[in-house]
């Protein structure tokens, strides 16, 4: 006897007959297409500019994915179930960055320790100053301020 199947999502315009649908795959495939297109455009841009490098490929891919999502929501071809296929990879992003940190050449990099600290502290202080400067120009309505 087969195990009890979870109910299908009735709100979808074309309910998938199978509870374990392939729809997250569409999201991941969309992500993959945007990724590849972005990297390709980055490579082409690099060649056009005469650089032996990928110029902003990841950034272009992000913009493509944002555009695809905006378009998909407006035209209705992008469904919540498909988006899961992207959200999973977005959630994996921190673990992937951690794995990346595990394979860095830390031994050699440690010779530059003080520089990293000094640059980070200066940048942090300068940015805090800018945040303060910009936010002091905002007119805050009394009702908007936090009650805590």
């Amino acid at each position, binding site marked *: 006897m087969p195990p009890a199947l979870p109910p299908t999502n009735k709100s979808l315009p074309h309910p998938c007959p199978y509870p374990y649908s392939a729809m997250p795959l569409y999201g991941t495939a969309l*992500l993959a297409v*945007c990724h590849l297109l972005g*990297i390709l455009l*980055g490579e082409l841009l690099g060649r056009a*500019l005469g650089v*032996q*490098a*990928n*110029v*902003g490929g*990841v*950034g*272009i891919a*992000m*913009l493509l*994915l*944002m555009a695809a*999502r*905006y378009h998909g929501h407006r035209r209705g071809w992008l469904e919540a179930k498909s*988006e899961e296929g992207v*959200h*999973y*990879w*977005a959630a*994996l*992003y*921190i*673990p*992937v*960055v*951690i794995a*990346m*940190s*595990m*394979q*860095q*050449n*830390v*031994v*050699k990099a440690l010779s*530059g320790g*003080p*520089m*990293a*600290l000094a*640059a*980070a502290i200066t*940048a*942090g202080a*300068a*940015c*805090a100053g*800018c*945040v303060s400067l*910009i*936010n*002091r120009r*905002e007119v*805050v309505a009394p009702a908007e301020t*936090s009650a805590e």
Partner: protein
Amino acid sequence: MESLLQKLAVDNGLVLSFAVVGAVVLCSGYISRKLTVGRVQGSAIAILLGLALAYVGGRMTGGNKGLADVTYFGGLALMGGNMLRDFAIVATAFEVQPAEARRAGWVGALALFIGTLLPFVIGVSFAYAFGYRDAVSLTTIGAGTVTYIVGPVTGSAIGASSEVITLSIAVGVFKAILVMVTTPLLAKFMRLGTPRSAMVFGGLAGTVSGVSAGLAATDRKLVPYGALVATFHTGVGCLVVPSLFFFAVRALFPAHA
């Protein structure tokens, strides 16, 4: 027995690395809650732990790929490699809502612009002061000062050495932790209290984990607003730094050929 385990680890490298990273995240979450009372976000501790493990791996093997050079952990090279890293970074673009973003208006864009340019200039200046003279290393360290994601993305795009990329991550991680720890302390000084102020903060402080953890420790309501602009930050950085900023730095510091 040992050869059996080794075969298992080598044949299932990527799967093993998921388990290894999961264990590291679990440990860092525990450290985050118990030792720092949630002040330092788990992900930042996990990255520091990862760098520490990479140091141990590098010392053990003498290689230049950290823990991934240890036979058992070779799968980390795939999980943390360029392909999956860029794939996951692109996926985070989905978290940006264009409708919400438009509400940030020109202040958010201004903060984003200053928040990319200012840390970059400071990072490049410090790299120059500490003896780096080639445009690729200067740009990569400047990029790392923007965020620890822009650093490695820029570094591998323009062909920086592994040491410089690691250094750029170190700068970014230091900055992220600094933001997490000091945001609640500086909240009054920075006038953090409204969604708009949080967006300005997100644009200028940059690192997503730093911003979300810093804001969470300050005022829970402000987290999405700050993170919204901060997610743009990485995209803008990844787009602008390896292209425009790199060309500018290369024009200022031409190669001595």
